[in-house]
């Protein structure tokens, strides 16, 4: 996997959505085996507009609209990967992916092992995750932690425009199944795309903001909230280091433990429910690997244990917010 080049200052404003589209377009141009399929990816342009214009450029064979049959078309993506193609399968939201869970877990994640190493499955499955858009419980959950439970797949959560731009290429280069979780509230987010970065390393987490007093460990849609919280805390004289996990499976323990080793305090921000969450896993790993580095109990900021509600004030109250992250950090450093 290529390494990150040193930025030279050339950058341009891009939205997360456009960055994802550029990544897709590049993949389609570079490898004839790559094709995109999913619900409304073609004529409609993708329900979040990610694939807008790609049908016109690449045609219906490679930008392939599917029926509303998640298990069928995700399984077909897995089969096409077995058959030598490099399919990118889009599922509208993580809630819908549950209809394809059999194919993802029992086939994609399992075939290589069950076949004694004979059958690798180079499929990439993209989907939206997360809440914040008043879409109600069946369009708002954060279930990527469930997928991160499964051996045999890689789970990615791009939080920045650079990651949105380049993670797909790295995912397609992986010989094993990769799930890419795009947070719905990030699509319109603008960032500065570094034109000198041409690849990302999927094996390492990134320190997005260095700090000395506390490690705020997060990923995906919670990263901007953690960054906002860190900014507020800086005003109070608390220096928070923000770690973006980027890859949820396999977890980069080294970066997390190194950060905790520097700050001696940890706050984990995870939009999923607290019980049995990725936040629980990370907290546990910190206890196992860096217990003696800790000056305070690990804090967790997760969603309320409730199906995500529709009403704005209820939804906001259910989710991690910059203010709740600030509170958790204050508890950790007090």
């Amino acid at each position, binding site marked *: 996997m290529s390494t990150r080049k040193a930025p030279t200052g050339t950058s341009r404003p891009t939205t997360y959505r456009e960055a994802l589209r550029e990544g897709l377009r590049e993949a389609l141009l570079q490898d004839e085996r790559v094709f995109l399929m999913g619900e409304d990816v073609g004529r409609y342009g993708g329900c979040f507009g990610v694939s807008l214009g790609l049908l016109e450029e690449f045609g219906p064979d490679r930008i392939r609209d599917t*029926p509303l049959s998640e298990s069928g078309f995700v399984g077909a993506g897995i*089969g096409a990967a077995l058959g030598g193609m490099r399919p990118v399968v889009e599922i509208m939201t993580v809630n819908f992916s549950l209809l394809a869970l059999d194919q993802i877990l029992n086939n994609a994640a399992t075939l*290589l092992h069950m076949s004694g190493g004979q059958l690798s499955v180079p499929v990439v499955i993209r989907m939206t995750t997360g809440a914040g858009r008043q879409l109600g419980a069946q369009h708002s959950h954060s279930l990527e932690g469930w997928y991160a439970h499964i051996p045999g797949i890689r789970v990615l959560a791009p939080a920045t425009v650079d990651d949105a731009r380049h993670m797909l290429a790295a995912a397609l280069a992986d010989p094993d199944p990769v799930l890419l979780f795009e947070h719905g509230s990030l699509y319109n987010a603008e960032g500065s795309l570094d034109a000198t970065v041409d690849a990302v390393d999927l094996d390492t987490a990134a320190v997005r903001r260095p700090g000395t007093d506390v490690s705020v460990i997060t990923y995906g849609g919670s990263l901007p909230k953690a960054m906002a919280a860190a900014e507020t805390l800086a005003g109070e004289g608390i220096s928070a280091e923000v770690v973006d996990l980027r890859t949820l499976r396999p977890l980069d323990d080294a970066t997390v433990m190194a950060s905790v080793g520097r700050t001696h305090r940890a706050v984990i921000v995870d939009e999923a429910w607290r019980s049995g969450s990725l936040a629980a896993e990370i907290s546990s790993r910190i206890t196992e690997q860096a217990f003696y580095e800790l000056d305070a109990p690990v804090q967790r900021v997760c969603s309320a244990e409730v199906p995500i509600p529709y009403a704005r004030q209820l939804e906001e109250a259910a989710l991690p917010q910059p203010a709740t992250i600030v509170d958790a950090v204050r508890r950790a450093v007090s």
Partner: protein
Amino acid sequence: MELYSGAKIRGFVHLYIGEEAVAVGVNQALREEDAVVSTYREHGHALARGVSADAVMAEMYGRATGCSRGRGGSMHLFDATHRFYGGNAIVAGGLPLAAGLALADRMRGSTRVTCCFFGDGAFAEGEFHETANLAALWRLPLLLVCENNLYAMGTSLAREHAQTNLAMRAASYGMPAWTVDGMDVLAVEAAALRAAESVRAGNGPHFLEAQTYRFRAHSMYDPDRYRAKSEIEEWKGRDPLKGLAELMRSEGQLDDRVMEELDKEVLAEIDQSVQRAEKAPLEPVSDLLRFVTSETGGAA
């Protein structure tokens, strides 16, 4: 079966006895470059596809020389060199995969056929219908072979399907669908050949229902209380092996001496594969975590 009783082979084992004509007939119609996707009752499919008895037996013994290196067992036989894609224990789970293999061929303009075996139980699963729709919509080179053995574990066809005419239902997706006597290997071969050639010619998916019967219980744990003894005996009267032998005798192609030799050959091959499996090395426990992710690394 004896090896299972003797605890040499463990796990769920689903014997194929009685259904042999389907695997043999269909595989006769397929070519080396074609792909086969199968179910947990796949020993017959694997052998008819050309996977060696040694590799199958060793896998059932959980040995390093098994076709899945001891990771799969009876329900997960795989052989990439024969394009044999398992070995799926989730009923209907292989159907979408087969559609994907066919899609890959179609997108590359290949004339290969993907054949997917499944049972009448799979017909009740959504994945069958999702796959049939997708395959017909995209005109995928897919041969769907339903082994209708009348029982989904212990549930008879009439107790699980509102409409038991499976070919008619498959035809509703806009694909040619035929029913064939699954106890007659020549009939299966003829029908499969016709279907496979039409698939190969670019006419989209075809559906073949083979009406067959398993002489043994669903699995080695099944007490088989749901079927009348008389029904089983009646079907045994149509044993596909005996049926073919009788036909060949009547046409003068087979006599007692040849039959005796054939029996001996088969028994010797089985005996040899058992002996080899017994002596084969175990997959080392130190390799437990291998094949969870690829060992080739992530480089493009």
